[in-house]
């Protein structure tokens, strides 16, 4: 019986550890997608500036508060604008950014397809 008790406690502690690791993973994932606004070409995750360090604390606080990834992005977007996200959402300011590569791909594909057809004939 005692053995079971200890087993349970160990299991519980290990689970706690898991939870912590998950939240760290999530916070790393989020901060990698945030642009450090006062640095040049660095994400918040990579940077060691005051701004980035505070932002890392804010992100982990928000995870503890129970916000999910999307809600945290929304929160920061409201404070700092689209520019803070490396992966901007599709809206009227960014539709060209998102659709242009697809469009170029299709045009390129069409050209190759046509060429291929011609040489096959």
């Amino acid at each position, binding site marked *: 019986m005692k053995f079971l008790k200890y087993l349970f406690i160990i299991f519980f502690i290990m689970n706690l550890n898991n939870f912590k690791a998950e939240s760290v993973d999530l916070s790393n994932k989020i901060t990698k997608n945030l642009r450090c606004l006062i640095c040049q070409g660095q994400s918040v995750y990579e940077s060691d500036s*005051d*701004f980035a360090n*505070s*932002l890392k604390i804010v992100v982990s*606080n928000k995870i503890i508060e129970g916000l999910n990834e999307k809600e945290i992005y929304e929160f920061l977007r409201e*404070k*700092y604008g689209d520019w803070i996200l490396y992966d901007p959402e599709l809206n009227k300011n960014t539709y060209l950014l998102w659709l242009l590569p697809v469009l170029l791909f299709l045009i390129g594909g069409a050209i190759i397809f046509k060429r291929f057809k011609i040489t096959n004939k």
Partner: protein
Amino acid sequence: MKNKIFLFVSIFIFIIIFSVFYKGLNKINIYSPKVELNKKIPQYSSKLINSDKLVNYSEIFNYDHFILLNIWSSWCVPCREEHELLMNLSQQRNIRLIGLNYKDNVISAQKFLDELGNPFETILVDIEGVQAIEWGAFGVPESFLIFKSKVVKKYVGPLNENLINEIKLIIK
């Protein structure tokens, strides 16, 4: 015939791409944050300097006149330069100055104020820099003009005489 269409289409695409890039050439690509805002102040609570009590933002910023929130720190050199202007502004009757002490320790903050004077009515303490993020600030110094719990204007970087005059005009 097909060749002609191909030529025409590629020239057309080239012209579009050329014009997009040519237009982009003259565009200023330095990111500048929005300064004219009409945003509600964040909901948060903060410790005050020399006190352990947590005070809610809604209590501090509940005021009928203008409030200038200034983010400062004793280690920040531009803050030292703008401090005299803040002292000057605090003489005005229809504005209240509130300081947010950013990533500082209380002793050096107190020394800074003893040396240069204290223009602030209340000083909030932000050791981790978390509150500055809630305000949407980038660093020190930064100032927010607040009216009726709304941020009217944001000044990134140190205030200068022109900006102080602008604030004086707004609060008149």
